[in-house]
């Protein structure tokens, strides 16, 4: 099966790639959006003082 990779996807905030599989007729059999990125705010905000969190979470997305 033929595979078309769009890597990276651009002109947006964040990281992503798209894999498109084509069948023998050249039609799209399936497509997958993948996010090759994890920073872990869910974890590393734990234990930080609550008054500091407004200075940390803006760095989730700075766009």
């Amino acid at each position, binding site marked *: 099966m033929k595979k078309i990779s769009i890597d990276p996807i651009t002109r947006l905030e964040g990281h992503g790639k798209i894999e498109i599989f084509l069948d023998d007729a050249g039609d799209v059999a399936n497509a997958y959006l993948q996010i090759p990125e994890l920073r872990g705010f869910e974890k590393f905000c734990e234990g930080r003082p609550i008054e*500091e969190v407004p200075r940390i979470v803006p760095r989730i997305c700075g766009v």
Partner: protein
Amino acid sequence: MAKLKLALYWSAACGGCDVAVLDINEKILDVANLADIVFWPIALDFKYHHVEAMPDKSIDVCLFNGAVRSSEQEHIAKMLRAKSKVMVSFGSCACFGGIPALANFATRAEIMERAYIEAPSNENPNKTLPQIKVSVPEGELTLPELYENVLTLAQVVPVEYLVPGCPPTVDLILKVVNALATNSLPPVGATIASDKTLCDECERKKENKKITKIYRTHEIIPDPERCLLEQGLLCMGPATRGGCGALCVKVNIPCRGCFGPPAGVYDQGAKLISSIASIYQTNGKQDIEKMVNELVDPAGTFYRFGMSISMLKRKLPQKR
């Protein structure tokens, strides 16, 4: 002069550094006159294979923002290094690890578990975690390996310059642009900011007063004229490189150290501990214990932007 070839890339980052480049407003037109941008995912549609196809050293300058915490990011960092004559660690994440390096207080397994299994917004009854390779009916999908450690760019490839800041300020970015335009880059290894501390450029009044209590930021409204540290607020100024224009302290907010350690300081946290020790009024062990108890989350504060280059390094994974 032939136009420069400029690349910008984001690794483990938030995009704020890329947006900061646009914050130079109409001066971006000078950049357009000076350079052709050959890679910039946030703004232009070049793919990795386009970069791969470029000859080595064909990019004049690469401004690389973001920390390095996956096999893909390391691969792109090495690829851009090979293609670029000058590699710049752009922003606190690339320079020191930045906010993403707070992840070094947890293990990779804990981060994955929290993000993909425990987080209340998940619906993941099979507890599926991202895999490096996965077979789907149509073929195979791959993802990069998430590293145990969040690294700086310079921990992965040689780097010519550091431009710190979360994000780098407009003034600093213009300094870089002007240096490129006039071919007057500083000696290799330079940090493009002040060599002195933030305190050196802070206009607040310092009275060499001792403190008897460390306050959390919501507990007092500080006097806007006086040194924040001397009012008992933890301010990273003495342990932080200047060059930001004292942006946070000017609005009554203590510094959190995003410009990294000043020239000659090995460890930002150790430096701040020494500053606190010199102004905290103690009369014996009890006072020291009191002070320690008043410091909420010292590691996460002293190394807010610098875990990757800290003496602490990271939380050790548990032995199995």
